[in-house]
């Protein structure tokens, strides 16, 4: 009796252990050696696309082309931005989507964990010309010399300013384009208005913490080494850049006041900060030009690129990328989808679709559409018709910025690196640490995360 109970307990324990260890199946390390990438092959089966909504004409026009190229493949969209929890759940259950649409800065971490496939075979088999992509975009999806994503879209920053406020203060947009930090600081003081501790006009918004990489680069520093292995957050040039960007807020009563005032603005509506003349100038991504053009076409705006100290145009590139998860059931279809969606033909179709929509609304095409594909960008630039000032300048400056982009290189600890950087900048903004203390601590945290992640990646390889 006792023996049989002991046996039952042992069996239950063994079953429990087997279940525990067998529960987490994952797909890490699965490869695509069985896949046969061929641009002329007839494809079939199903393909689920995670992280791509496909709601506007720029998406649907390209999707039409991609679906045509996929033939009999049944495509299902799992809409919304890529939800990492949803993706990981699918991976953990051993049934990942066939293709994911991710932010480019997520690619390094996912690649290092074996969650997505290197695309060398896909690129070669489908004949994807990687030379057509904007170099910074391609760099962001390349880890340890292997491409893990097909980039699309490129986001760059422009200097956006309220021309009336500048004129009233005897300034021009060149005073706030970042080429001379002292000039920006003086302009900030001249433009800022407020009484009794409450701001009524933000002079200049240096957009911390998100644009810290931009200010560091503008001061000649890279936050991370080119090979993605060494953090350089405590570089004196980085600390100097942070001190200056924070001083912009300090001169206006502190970040706390500026952020509270900024948060109260109607950012996407007619009452935006430029239309209501409560913001002098700021660097901002180019897509905001379209928002401003739609909601406040008569706002007194002035545009320029963002300049590095000394005068050169500079932009911090971000964007999206297509990646094929390890364990994808239909990698051939996924690869073709990525190829067609990012092709020059698809972008031309997208631009035509947008022009059609804008004309139907009685609006001109602003040309604010950066694809991440340099050939397509050039083509689209030729399709832009004059919208009038200041929008023509905005489009011209955007294309100028697109030529001068940089990106943070892909690395296997991207999330930890970014969190360390942002926490450090936030702690300085909140007055909890000096720039030296904050960046020193962030350097240690980021380097530890990078060392661990690279060691793990290299041991697995």
């Amino acid at each position, binding site marked *: 009796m006792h023996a049989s109970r002991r046996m039952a307990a042992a069996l239950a324990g063994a079953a*429990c252990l087997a279940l*525990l*260890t067998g*529960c*987490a*199946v*994952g*797909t*890490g*390390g699965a490869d695509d050696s069985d896949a046969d990438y061929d641009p002329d092959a007839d494809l079939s089966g199903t393909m689920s696309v995670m992280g791509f909504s496909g709601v506007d004409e720029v998406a649907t026009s390209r999707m039409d082309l991609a679906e045509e190229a996929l033939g009999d493949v049944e495509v299902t969209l799992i809409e919304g931005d890529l939800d*990492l*929890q949803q993706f*990981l759940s699918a*991976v*953990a259950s051993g049934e990942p989507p066939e293709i994911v649409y991710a932010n480019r800065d997520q690619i390094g*971490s*996912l690649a290092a*964990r*074996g*969650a997505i496939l290197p695309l060398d075979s896909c690129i070669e088999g489908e004949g994807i010309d990687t030379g057509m992509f904007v170099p910074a975009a391609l760099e962001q999806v390349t880890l340890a010399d292997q491409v893990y994503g097909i980039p699309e879209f490129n986001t760059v920053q422009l200097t956006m300013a309220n021309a009336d406020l500048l004129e009233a203060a005897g300034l021009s947009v060149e005073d706030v384009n970042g080429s001379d930090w002292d000039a920006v600081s003086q302009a900030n003081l001249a433009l800022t208005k407020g009484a*009794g*501790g*409450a*701001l009524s006009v933000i002079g200049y918004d240096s957009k911390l*913490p*998100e644009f810290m990489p931009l200010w560091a680069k503008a001061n000649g520093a890279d936050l991370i080494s080119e090979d993605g292995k060494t953090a350089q957050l405590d570089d004196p040039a980085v600390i100097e850049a942070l001190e200056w960007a924070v001083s912009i807020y300090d001169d206006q009563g502190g*970040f*706390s*006041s500026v*952020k*509270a*005032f900024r*948060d*109260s603005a109607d950012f996407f509506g007619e009452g935006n900060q430029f239309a209501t003349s409560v913001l002098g100038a700021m660097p901002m991504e180019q897509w905001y030009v379209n928002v401003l053009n739609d909601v406040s076409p008569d706002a007194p705006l002035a545009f320029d690129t963002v300049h590095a100290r000394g005068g050169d145009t500079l932009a911090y590139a971000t964007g999206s990328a297509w990646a094929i998860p*390890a364990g994808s059931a239909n990698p051939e279809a996924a690869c073709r989808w990525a190829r067609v969606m990012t092709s020059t033909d698809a972008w031309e179709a997208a631009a035509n679709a947008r022009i059609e929509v804008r004309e139907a609304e009685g609006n001109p095409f602003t040309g604010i559409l950066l694809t991440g594909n340099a050939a397509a960008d050039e083509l689209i630039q030729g399709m832009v018709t004059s919208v009038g000032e200041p929008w023509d300048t905005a489009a011209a400056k955007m294309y100028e910025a697109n030529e001068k982009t940089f990106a943070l290189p892909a690395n296997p600890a991207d*999330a*930890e690196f970014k*969190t360390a950087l*942002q*926490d450090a900048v*936030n*702690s300085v903004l*909140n*007055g*909890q640490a000096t720039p030296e203390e904050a960046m020193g601590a962030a350097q240690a945290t980021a380097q530890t995360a990078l060392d661990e992640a690279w060691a793990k990646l290299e041991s697995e390889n």
Partner: protein
Amino acid sequence: MADTAVKAGDGSAGAGISPTADESARARSRRRAARRNTGSALLFLSPWIIGFCVFTAWPLIYSAYLSLTDYDVINDPQFVGFENYAQLFQDPKVLLALQNTAFFTFVQVPLYVIVSLALALLLQRAGRSAGFFRTIFFLPKMTPPVAIGILFLLLFNGQNGLINTVLGWFGINGPAWTTDPAWVKPGLIMMSLWTVGASVIILLAALQNVPEELYESARIDGAGFWRQSFSITIPMISPALFFIIVVNTIAGLQTFDEAYTAFFGSGNTTYSNDAALFYVIYLFQQAFEFLNMGYASAMAWLLFGVIMIVTAVQLIVSRRLVYYEGETQR
């Protein structure tokens, strides 16, 4: 055994059923009935039992296993022993998150109880309009926590928020609740008081069960409002108060939604605020942003331990302070 006894009884009695056989038959019948009852009970309970096993017990066991592994969800877990637990004590953010959570919980819970009790006492005297106000007080409880997080940012905006506007009417220059680290937690605590509705209803029910004779006797003896409150009301509703304290302490230690929405969610992906880094938020970051599921599981078990200890202390203290009717006074 029972069968053997019946057969033996049959043999010795010769004719008819002996008393022993009769008892054995009754015992058998009782056992059969008991088995039937157990079977029926298990059948009726089975949806809950299955739900408990699948959605509570198994994840609990599994997370204990994961806490001993290095697991990133994508690759198979690698056993690392107690390494994750050792790392917990070296991670300064764990300590920061625990401090933030403890401050929030131990300030918020007493305030929550005081406001709930005050509102319940007011409602008790509201007469026929009590039903209307009960509904009004309960409505915020039905607001999704994510919406509360967004509302927090709007109401407590340091420049144009309603709270500071109202404070301004009285000549008070309100703080930057959402951006000044010193005021973030007090702001979140104030916002959490908005959802006291459920506790108000529980306390109101408890107050209505306090026998009126006790107050009459006290009044005859000359007891005023405060004396009646401390000598009659609070002791008589102490089980309800204890329940609210325990439940809200656990909820406070697990606080996540509102603070995450306001400071770490979409739209605030870059501006995080260490003052709002509560323990479960850091756990979530480790699990789903850094993909350290093993470490996050260890964090979950540490929180479980903290909650168990705090609840055990509350239970021990309650033996002296909570009065249950019909129970012998200790």
